[in-house]
């Protein structure tokens, strides 16, 4: 069982009290417990079961404008005493930074709404096994599928965030995640793909058969890939890849990248960085949302932000430290975005495929090819050649490249947004990118 609020609060207030006694002028503490149970299947047989129980604490102490932090998984008082003493000692020896401070008191979250993030139901390992058996049966139905690996995880977490300004709050969250990875093979090639579902509530999880079928079909269609020539071509990003482009945008507007001057979007506030029709939201209060939260990792209240309004950048993602540096107030984005998404476009998926006589539909990218300093983008890619709206054949061993500044101006979005991850995008078309192949 995941530890209750009372246990976590007691630990937190013990740490705050001790830090103060040892000379800290301010301090904040997070105590978190997370209990997960996972069952893995491989080729329709039990492969692994895994139970984890993680308890952790992290403490930041301030002496005036000096700051230092410690973290530990050992919550015994003996150990905490040694660590907090060490933390305060280190703080004394760390140079001052005028921007170091706890959040402004009036920005702290006052009321904590129930966002429906915790499902009390427990799925025993035997039930997980039943689900995985169904999933694996569906995934391995076709003879071309030669290996299946599936997984079911139940996670229950609880945390408390407290600081010396009197903030003390936290709440439980749960997640239920099922995934299937399949390998398909024929004489010419071997390919892998996956499907996955993750929800706060068990009853909302995708049907096992549906998941298995999707994984298998997505893998089989990749068999016999070809390599194409190098050319300038329109790229259509599958939703699961398009969300990555939105994540790169989020890193580039983080107040840390902006204040350090290491973002290609520095000084772009109120500038048109996307095409007209693009709107981007970060909405923390979605019920059952995978990225939902009541306050950020500093306790600052989080409101919905329309980050991009008709192509114009309206907000950075601001935390306390970088906010002070930029002379801006924190908007509760310490730790990043919550439920971040592109608003739907007004084109159907089918029409998007038909936008150009020839395009590439990208289902997977590999490599870490996003540079937020320069905006340069270059990654390995797998997908399909699309001609006149039809999938012609699978392609691989190519790269796609461009610069985000140009790419953002050339985005067209479909109207097929769904909330499958914390960050979501409809299917995305970008004109004018370069493919390197043969």
């Amino acid at each position, binding site marked *: 069982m995941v530890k209750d609020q009372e246990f976590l609060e007691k630990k937190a207030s013990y740490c705050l009290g001790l830090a103060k006694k040892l000379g800290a002028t301010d301090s904040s503490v997070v105590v978190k417990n997370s209990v997960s149970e996972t069952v893995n299947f*491989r080729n329709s*047989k*039990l*492969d*692994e*079961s*895994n*139970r*984890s*129980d*993680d*308890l*952790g604490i992290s403490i930041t102490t301030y002496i005036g404008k000096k700051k*230092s*932090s*410690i*973290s*530990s998984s*050992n*919550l015994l008082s*003996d*150990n905490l005493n040694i*660590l907090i003493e060490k933390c305060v000692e280190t703080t004394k*020896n*760390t*140079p001052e*930074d005028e921007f170091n401070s706890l959040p402004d008191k009036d920005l702290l979250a006052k009321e904590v709404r129930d966002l429906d993030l915790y499902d009390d139901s427990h799925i025993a*390992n035997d039930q997980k096994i039943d689900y995985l058996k169904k999933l694996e049966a569906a995934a391995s139905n076709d003879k071309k599928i030669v*290996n299946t690996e599936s997984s079911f995880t139940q996670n229950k977490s609880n945390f408390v965030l407290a600081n010396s300004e009197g903030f003390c709050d936290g709440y439980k969250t749960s997640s239920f995640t099922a995934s299937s990875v399949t*390998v398909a093979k024929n004489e010419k*090639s*071997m390919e*892998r793909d996956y499907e996955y579902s993750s929800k706060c509530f068990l009853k909302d999880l995708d049907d096992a058969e549906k998941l298995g079928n999707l994984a298998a079909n997505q893998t089989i269609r990749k068999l016999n890939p070809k*390599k194409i020539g*190098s050319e300038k071509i329109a790229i259509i990003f599958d939703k699961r890849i398009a969300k990555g482009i939105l994540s790169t945008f989020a890193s580039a507007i983080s107040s840390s990248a902006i204040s*350090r*001057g*290491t973002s290609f979007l520095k000084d772009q506030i109120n500038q048109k960085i996307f095409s007209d029709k693009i709107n981007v939201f970060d909405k923390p209060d979605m019920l059952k949302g995978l990225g939902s939260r009541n306050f950020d990792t500093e306790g600052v209240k989080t409101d919905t932000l329309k980050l991009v309004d008709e192509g114009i950048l309206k907000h950075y993602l601001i935390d306390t430290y970088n906010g002070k540096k930029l002379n801006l107030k924190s908007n509760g984005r310490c730790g990043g975005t919550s439920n971040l998404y592109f608003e739907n476009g007004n084109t159907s998926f089918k029409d998007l495929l038909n936008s150009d006589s020839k395009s590439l539909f990208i289902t*997977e990218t*590999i*490599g*870490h*090819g996003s540079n937020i*300093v*320069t905006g*340069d983008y*270059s990654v*390995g890619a*797998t997908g399909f050649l699309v001609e006149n709206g039809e999938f012609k054949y699978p392609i*691989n*061993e*190519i*790269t*796609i*490249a461009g610069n985000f500044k140009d790419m953002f101006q050339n985005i067209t979005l479909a109207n097929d947004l769904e909330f499958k991850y914390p960050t979501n995008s409809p299917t995305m078309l970008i004109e004018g990118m*370069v*493919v*390197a*192949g*043969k």
Partner: protein
Amino acid sequence: MSNFFEKSDLSRKEAESIISDTLRKCDDGELYLENSKSESILLDDNKIKNSNYNSDLGFGFRAISDEVVAYSHSNEISKNSLKQSSENLKSTLKSAKGTYNHEIPKSNKKYYDNINPIEQKSLNEKIKILNDVNDYLRSKGDKVKQVTANFLGEQKSVEIIRCGGETLSDVRPLIRFNVSVMLEKNGRKETGVYGVGGRQSYDSYLKDENWKSVCDEALRIASVNLESKPAPAGEMKVVLGPGWPAILIHEAVGHGLEGDFNRKKTSAFHNLMGQKVASEGVTIIDDGTIDNRRGSLTIDDEGTPTEKTVLIENGILKNFMQDRLNARLMKTRSTGSGRRENYRHIVLPRMRNTMMLSGKQTQEEMIKAVDKGIFAVSFGGGQVDITSGKFVFNCTEAYEIVDGKIGSPIKGATLIGDGPSILKEVSMVGNDMMMDPGIGTCGKAGQGVPVGVAQPSILIDKMTVGGTKL
């Protein structure tokens, strides 16, 4: 060494008895105990931004029956907690009726000293070096717009207790020192990153103002990139410099030769044992036994002494890298490659220091042999799809080669290739093998472990360069 039972209500004897009782009918398994202390001190934007100290303690209890692995971990080393883990394992492996394999090789060799690098240098000394780094780089002209430097230090004590009470232990130091610098000229920004590290004290790498050479290298890379032009797009010849570019070896063949993917037949290499997978003259080893290297280990995380494993010899595939589980199921022996990020994770077969050995040619000969291509010197990282065999890596310093001569620097680009065939495209192997500077971390199944790579300069006849210039 850590005494894991000192402050616990659980005695070593009781733990041994729970372990033996749990694993009796299993084929393998162990209790893995870990105590790690780590620090991170970061200078950024002219300030000491962060000084963080972490202490992590916990156990992972594993039981294996045939192919099935049951695992349970907790940060609480107590009677209750271990008993609960034992119950979890037993309930998963209800019908286990194996014979525990007690065999584990022994060795007295050690590849690093039992030190705690964090304690060997005071906080003030570390802060002073970071400030010196900042001042030094910012004195190099006003195009220097941002400097980030950090120290990462760790001491990890591990103990493995097997069925019957056999105990193996290791204390592993590890440090890293990184510098990143951003330059701006005429509105254009570029960064350069460099670092050093390994399993020794900070001073082994940084004494006598050695940190200046790390700064100089980061600055040099950033300066080169400021002058870079768009990279070409398409297939061409690629010369890789020695050292860190061996990320290519790590991604292209390393992962595909890990035992688990081959037992499951999901690696593009699974049916190629004994066959020619690389050009003649290409020999690749994975070596855990080089003194003080980042990827070296005295024993792996199952207690097996590490070794030098020949993967590819003169172009022929010779061995996979194995942990105990995959070795048993493939009827071979562990190569001491069983690793885990920490006690929260199960063991997987992983690389240590993966190296292509020197050949006879010189880098000049390679450059001369290229009419149109690129010369790649420095890399950011890579990734592989082990099933299709396709892999990528990202250049952070590269030049065009025109008519046998090195030309202008080109922008960072991703290179993509096919693992099982790329090494057959290697037409020259240099005589200049070099280790990487000791900063690599390899990710697999959500677990990061420190690794090393090495290679000489090599010429690859055909590879796809992912630039924007057609």
